[in-house]
């Protein structure tokens, strides 16, 4: 995997393209990220670059974390994340280097990883997209948003994977192939088309798209 960035979701708005069509965008404060550590096969067993993001007060950082960052010669920072490198890839960066939004350019496809909004304990309609009960006639009552039957008489147990109520959201979500619409390294701004997981001010990780654009289907339907 190639190098990416750590960022913070700022919110959504839209911009107009050259034809005047509105394009929905999400703004991300992308970087600047400092290289905290370069991991090598010899020392760590795998190759990766560890990035740090968002300066904070040193007092707030635990001593081991502070020491780790001091070793790289960078300020105390809040978020650390590793980006794995392929066996063939050279790290090209050294601890203390800075990466910013200029890593990406307009038109690039990126994957964005974030933590989705926590929704707490939710029912089956919101969590699994069940349809609920359309009408409540024929003698049934107080049965609108239930999941219905969870199994039959035969297996004598509930089959694994049956949708039930429970905690929803607050999990790691990857949005693939989001198009970069605008990049402003001077303001550390990155704008991508469409939505990004998580709430505003949530941390997101940006990497070049792993799978690339979906092949356009030749069989038109």
């Amino acid at each position, binding site marked *: 995997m190639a190098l990416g960035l750590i960022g913070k979701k*700022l*919110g959504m*708005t*839209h*911009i*107009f393209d050259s*034809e*005047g069509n*509105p394009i929905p965008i999400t*703004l991300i*404060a992308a970087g600047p990220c400092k290289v905290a550590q370069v991991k090598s096969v010899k020392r760590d067993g795998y190759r990766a670059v560890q990035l740090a993001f968002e300066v904070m007060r040193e007092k707030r950082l635990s001593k081991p974390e502070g020491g780790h960052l001091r070793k790289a010669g960078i300020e105390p920072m809040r978020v650390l994340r590793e980006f794995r490198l392929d066996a063939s890839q050279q790290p090209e960066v050294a601890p203390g280097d800075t990466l910013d939004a200029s890593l990406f350019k307009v038109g690039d496809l990126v994957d964005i990883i974030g933590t989705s909004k926590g929704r707490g304990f939710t029912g089956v309609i919101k969590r699994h997209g069940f349809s609920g009960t359309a009408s409540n006639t024929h003698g049934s009552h107080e049965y609108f948003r239930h999941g219905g039957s969870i199994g039959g008489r035969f297996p004598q147990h509930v089959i694994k994977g049956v949708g039930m109520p429970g905690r929803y959201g607050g999990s790691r979500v990857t949005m693939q192939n989001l198009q970069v619409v605008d990049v402003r390294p001077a*303001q550390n*701004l990155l*704008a991508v088309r469409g939505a990004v997981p998580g709430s505003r001010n949530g941390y997101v990780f940006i990497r070049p798209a792993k799978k690339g654009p979906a092949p356009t289907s030749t069989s038109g339907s």
Partner: protein
Amino acid sequence: MNVIDYLEKEQMKASVEDFRPGDLVRVHLRILEGEKERVQVFEGNVVGRSGGGVRETFTVRKVSYGIGVERIFLLHSPRVERIEVRRKGKVRRAKLYYLRQRSGKKARIKERDR
């Protein structure tokens, strides 16, 4: 200033015509037909305005061949070339959804003093 406000400001029109719900307006809309570009006019009453910043929209209602037509425009869209205020209306609410239930003489809007 908030980054989003700042970015939206870049996209906004420098000046926007002053109009309110109840006004009769003519919206001059640029339309791309194949290669050619032409201007289409949509005339009707402003039913309401909604949203803020670049995302502000307004709804225009007209009755066309006996059928009510409402169209929502993006106020800052480059496609909305010009908004011409033909008549100022005097109304007592911000959203004139009650017009949908009315027709003929009852659907009239009083004129506001200039």
